[in-house]
């Protein structure tokens, strides 16, 4: 009797039991929710590489090089006035004190011949934004003050201001060089009345900020000592 009845019902609609399918789909959904990791909200600093310098533009190079602001970043404790071999030995000493494979975190940032600023790179990796912010602000303030004191010789437009060159010791972490770049950009944004250096047109009108090209080819201890010597004695 019951069988007959159910057959009759099937004539109108096919009842499909969806419960197992939904179970399965929910499991899949949970799996994908748990396994998918989203990249954190990343931002970018835009820059344009100079094309009016070097061999590509050998003909149009201006004869008198403009005065420039040098921002130097090197391991803490390296003072001026030593032989390259002394810096080589000091570097070996600093590295020996670190855990193997760990980067150097105590660095000095020096603008021209001024007093160096001590930076603790390990602060940038800390959880909670305040320690990171404080360290970033410290670098910004130092560079802003240094750029302010050189303001007198700036031209009318930001484009004519003294170019800034960042000389970072090659074996240090990339974050130090980028933070110096960031500080100069922030200074330019404030001095130019809030113009962001973002689009190509804005970058062409902005002050030139560059990362210095590599100084040594082979990173042997002696060559690296020479590099440090050169960076530290730049003015």
């Amino acid at each position: 009797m019951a069988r007959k009845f159910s057959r009759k019902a099937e004539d109108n609609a096919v009842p499909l039991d969806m419960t197992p399918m939904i179970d399965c789909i929910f499991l899949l959904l949970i799996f994908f929710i748990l396994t998918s990791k989203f990249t954190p909200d990343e931002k970018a600093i835009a820059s344009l590489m100079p094309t009016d310098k070097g061999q590509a533009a050998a003909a149009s190079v201006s004869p008198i090089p403009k005065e420039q602001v040098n921002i130097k970043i090197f391991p803490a404790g390296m003072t001026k006035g030593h032989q390259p071999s002394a810096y080589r030995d000091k570097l070996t000493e600093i590295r020996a004190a670190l855990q193997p494979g760990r980067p150097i975190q105590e660095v000095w940032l020096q603008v021209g011949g001024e007093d160096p600023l001590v930076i603790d790179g390990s602060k940038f990796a800390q959880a909670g934004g305040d320690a990171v912010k404080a360290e970033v602000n410290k670098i910004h303030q130092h560079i802003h003050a240094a750029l302010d004191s050189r303001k007198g010789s700036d031209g009318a437009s930001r484009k004519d201001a003294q170019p800034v060159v960042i000389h970072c010791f090659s074996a240090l972490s990339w974050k130090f060089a980028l933070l110096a770049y960031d500080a100069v950009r922030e200074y330019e944004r404030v001095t130019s009345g809030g113009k962001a250096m973002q689009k190509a047109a804005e970058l062409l009108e902005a002050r030139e900020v560059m990362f210095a090209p590599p100084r040594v080819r082979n990173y042997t201890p002696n060559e690296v000592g020479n590099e440090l010597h050169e960076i530290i004695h730049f003015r």
Partner: protein
Amino acid sequence: MAKLKLESTETEIDMTAMIDLVFLLIIFFILAGKISSEQRSQQITVPPTKTATKLPEGDRIIINVFGSTTIGGPPANSIRVGTQTFEAKGIEDFSAYAKLRQLLDRAYDRADKKPDVKNPTLQIPEVVLEIRADADTEYRVVQEILQIVTDSVDPNDAMKPNTVPAQEMKPFIAINYTTRRPGENK
């Protein structure tokens, strides 16, 4: 007859809408997971900066540069673009940069180009290179990459200028450095 009456009292839930929704969610998570792993490698923690802006739209090539101290990650000084990884077997192995240059040459040939504003002999592709380097990448790796992208140096030796005439150079000049806001942690 008796049975029919019984059924009418049961509350029937229409699950179609729910299933539609759940399917959409699944598709979203499958695709989102894929997209984020395609070009951006997870093992990189980018450095914090204050002036960073939103990543601009448009054609871009993401150059992932791993930190030499990434624990459990790929070995020292490796560069990844899309699915290709260029590994340097030590600080003094420069072959990875030459391979990166070959990849950039191919990208340059495919891209739309415009003459440069400052130096019209150069043709500049309308592609942004995004350098996504780990905060603790050794600076020399980024330094070398910045030399390679402008094509003004010999890819096998960044201390020697490139010997090709300017018209044949394949420079990329729009560079983005990936970063994050100081308050945001990863």
